[in-house]
């Protein structure tokens, strides 16, 4: 395998040769190379994270019809470095009466829960951290650790507003895990496996054409999991100061903030892998592994842009509306969708691809339209109950 096709294996073999040449036993060399691989991945992710701060600020400024940072370096590219330096030189405070150990571990756990997600992301046909055959379930597990870190942050700050913010955020995250988990079942049904490599390999037709409603529900649930607007109860600046990270300053806040941006980018990536073909782009990934990495980063950026678009366009939803939306609309719809997709998948087992794809697509569209109609009629009834029947206004000439 040449270097361009399979860079990781070539590099690993060369390094093993070097290490055993120095007299290290083979097993120690392999463990060391594993650690080096992890270190390389995390370093690249951290650099990407800094770049994401710049992307976020530029995009939000464009949505708000202004220019954004453009003084520090060309196009403001050095701005995130200035931000990080500012955060690093700030005083590292701990509120009095706070639980020191829990207070300090919470930002570390939050960042950790995002970084461990990248162990299962398939970057190229033969570049993946570990090809778990339960990859889709693993990302829910990593989200669970993130949920825990938010509760720890909110409780350890010894601050009632932080605690309320943390409770609300955790209630939203735990509630929206259910539609997300259910929507993860749909690529699993199509691909026959939960492993991300298998899901990517099975996407000759992108799964978004087979199940667009699943992609939409997954996106909504993922935005709620991330704690971004319109679901950002924790950071409702006008409501709860800054939610669970009120009492954090300096680099600990930086870890929460950068962790949240990286988490959003990661879920953009997962949206791309699960529904938009991952690193596949009409055979381009077979040419070189670096092209595959470029393709998936590009798709993840587009997913991240859509998540930012939603954040800076929609307004925050009230907490009881949020939870009512999940339990009364999204979860039943997700369950019905999984049943319909599983049933159709079994019924259409041997049909040609175009028939399968079009029937699946139609079923999703019909289901989404039916759900919206039910929601619309329900809201119409609520409105007539609250306001009386709609009066017909006659125009007086």
């Amino acid at each position, binding site marked *: 395998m040449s270097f361009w096709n399979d860079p990781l294996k070539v590099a690993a073999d060369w390094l093993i040769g070097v290490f055993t040449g120095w007299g290290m036993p083979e097993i120690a060399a392999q463990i060391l190379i594993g650690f080096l691989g992890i270190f390389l991945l995390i370093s690249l992710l951290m650099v990407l994270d800094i770049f994401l701060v710049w992307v976020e600020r530029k995009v939000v400024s464009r949505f708000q019809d202004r220019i954004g940072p453009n003084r520090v370096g060309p196009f403001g590219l050095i701005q995130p470095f200035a931000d990080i330096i500012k955060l690093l030189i700030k005083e590292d405070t701990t509120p009095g009466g706070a639980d020191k150990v829990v207070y300090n571990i919470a930002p570390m756990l939050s960042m950790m829960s995002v970084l461990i997600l990248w162990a299962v992301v398939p970057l190229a046909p033969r570049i993946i951290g570990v090809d778990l055959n339960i990859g889709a379930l693993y990302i829910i597990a990593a989200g669970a650790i993130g949920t*825990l870190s938010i509760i720890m942050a909110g*409780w350890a700050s010894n601050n009632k507003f932080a605690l309320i913010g943390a409770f609300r955020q955790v209630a939203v995250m735990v509630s929206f895990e259910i539609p997300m988990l259910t929507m993860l079942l749909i690529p699993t049904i199509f691909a026959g496996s*939960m492993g991300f490599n298998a899901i990517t390999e099975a996407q000759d037709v992108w799964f978004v054409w087979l199940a667009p409603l699943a992609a939409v529900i997954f996106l909504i649930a993922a935005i709620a999991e991330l704690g971004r607007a319109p679901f950002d109860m924790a950071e409702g600046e006008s409501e709860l100061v800054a939610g669970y990270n009120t009492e954090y300053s300096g680099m600990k806040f930086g870890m929460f903030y950068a962790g949240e941006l990286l988490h959003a980018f990661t879920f953009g990536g997962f949206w791309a892998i699960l529904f938009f073909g991952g690193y596949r782009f009409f055979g381009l990934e077979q040419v070189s592994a670096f092209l595959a990495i470029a393709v998936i980063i590009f798709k993840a950026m587009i997913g991240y842009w859509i998540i930012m678009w939603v954040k800076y366009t929609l307004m925050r939803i009230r907490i009881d509306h949020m939870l009512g939306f999940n339990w009364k609309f999204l979860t039943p719809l997700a369950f019905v969708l999984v049943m319909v997709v599983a049933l159709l998948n079994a019924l259409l087992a041997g049909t040609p691809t175009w028939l399968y794809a079009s029937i699946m697509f139609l079923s999703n569209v019909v289901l989404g339209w039916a759900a919206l109609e039910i929601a619309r009629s329900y809201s119409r009834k609520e409105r007539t109950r609250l306001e009386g029947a709609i009066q017909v206004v006659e125009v007086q000439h």
Partner: protein
Amino acid sequence: MTGEQIIFILVALFTLGSGFMVVTTRNLVHAALWLVSTLFGVAVTFALLNASFLAVVQVVVYIGAIAILFIFAVMLTRKDMRDQGPQTNRNWWVGVLLSVLTFAGLFFLLQGWNGLSKTASAIPAGFDAISELGNALISPDAYVLPFEVASVLLVAALVGAVYVAFNRK
């Protein structure tokens, strides 16, 4: 001492230490957090046993739901933020005695037991635990009935928990 044995001993010590902290610490929120680390140790033990699905479900269900439920319950049932009074009841020495006796009895029994193969047999190649598990849970001559009964149980628990804890104001 092979590497596997060393790893197992480290994981076991970590889990048992966290478990001990769960039952002895005064601050209940700390106890819930020590429970999280115990549950994580148990998840790593599952991974050591090649039960990867169980390991991930352990993290999702126990740490992601049950431990958080415990933390919520601890925070909702405290009169103020401080801990008051002794944490162990009057007969705590009976508890120590019984648990030591239980462990000693089990240890004595399990020391020399040779019932199953003492070392694990290799997993046959191409064995996909996930699909085998899925088959076992759904196939009529395997375990579909306990599976369905467990789901009915969960619905009953859901309705019961909501009804019992409902705040009728």
